[in-house]
């Protein structure tokens, strides 16, 4: 309350004619001007300051690609040192495994298994290097007894 009254008091005093007159006197003081030489000197100082910031800007174009390369290098090292491993055991008929592993990998594994099994059975099994004779279209068109076969009846 007392503080408010003091504020009002000081506001009233600042608004008095004598105080306003002094305000006008101060306001009418002449404007100062600086010489061109002063400005030229300031410009030189500012250019020197600006040059101090230039090296930072000169390397800024290099910073972003370098950071990208560094990230790529880290990823490459991580992939080569700890390569992603495929599941070791595959259970046939397990749809989850089939879904998780790629079909190409499963095909390759099946081929490998079949090949290894064929090598284990001695004397039996087809020789992969032997030529297999396929019946020609002419053979299919004629029956065993040599009579003509009607294709429509098949």
């Amino acid at each position: 309350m007392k503080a408010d009254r003091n504020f009002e008091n000081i506001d009233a005093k600042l608004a008095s004619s004598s105080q306003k007159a002094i305000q006008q006197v101060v306001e009418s003081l002449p404007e100062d001007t600086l010489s061109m030489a002063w400005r030229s000197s300031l410009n030189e100082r500012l250019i020197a300051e600006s040059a101090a910031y230039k090296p930072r800007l000169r390397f800024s174009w290099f910073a972003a690609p370098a950071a990208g390369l560094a990230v790529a290098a880290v990823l490459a090292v991580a992939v080569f040192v700890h390569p992603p491993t495929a599941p070791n055991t595959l259970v046939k008929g397990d749809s989850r495994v089939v879904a998780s592993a790629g079909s190409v990998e499963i095909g390759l594994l099946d081929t490998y298994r079949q090949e290894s099994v064929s090598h284990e059975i001695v004397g039996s099994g087809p020789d992969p290097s032997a030529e297999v004779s396929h019946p020609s279209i002419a053979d299919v068109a004629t029956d065993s007894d040599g009579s003509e076969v009607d294709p429509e009846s098949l």
Partner: protein
Amino acid sequence: MEVCIGTNILSGRQYDAIESSLVDRCRRRDMEAFGKLVDAYQNRVFGFVRRMINNPEEAADVTQDVFVRAFQSFDRFDGRSSLRTWLFRIAYNLCIDRVRRSDRRVTEVALVEPGEEGETMEVADMRWQPEQIALDDELMGVVEEGILSMSEKLRSVLLLHDKEEMAYEEIANLLDVPIGTVKSRLFLARAHLQNVLKTYLEARA
């Protein structure tokens, strides 16, 4: 508020928009933009500094320091205060540093309570009619001397309010003091200047 830049008189809103774009460019260390800022404020900052430091050559150096400091630290200007307030804060701090460093003796007025001096303020004096006084060079010299004979605290508030037309809030923000302190300092500064002028006029009469 109307501001004159070059030959153009701008409204407050137009000026704010121009200042905002100028600040953005200055943050990117655009020399041309900073040059415009210097053009707009160099004489006002110099006027303030020259009256804070009683040495025109030193004041010119300090004014350069103000703009160099502003250029260096523009990225720290957060825009909470106006550009003018920020520049004058730098100027004020540099002036105070310079004044403290130089062992200058200034006749300071005592900080008395406004109420004590207020009683003598309203005494009618027919010789003291400021509106009729021609502000010639001699009188201006007396006013300048009167301003210089104040403490830095009073002088800064008087110059910022009456010469730079800053609001109380803006000055309080700039000097980091309460508004009440700004008002009481302004009152005391004007009262001191009034006494100086009264003494001069009495001596002349």
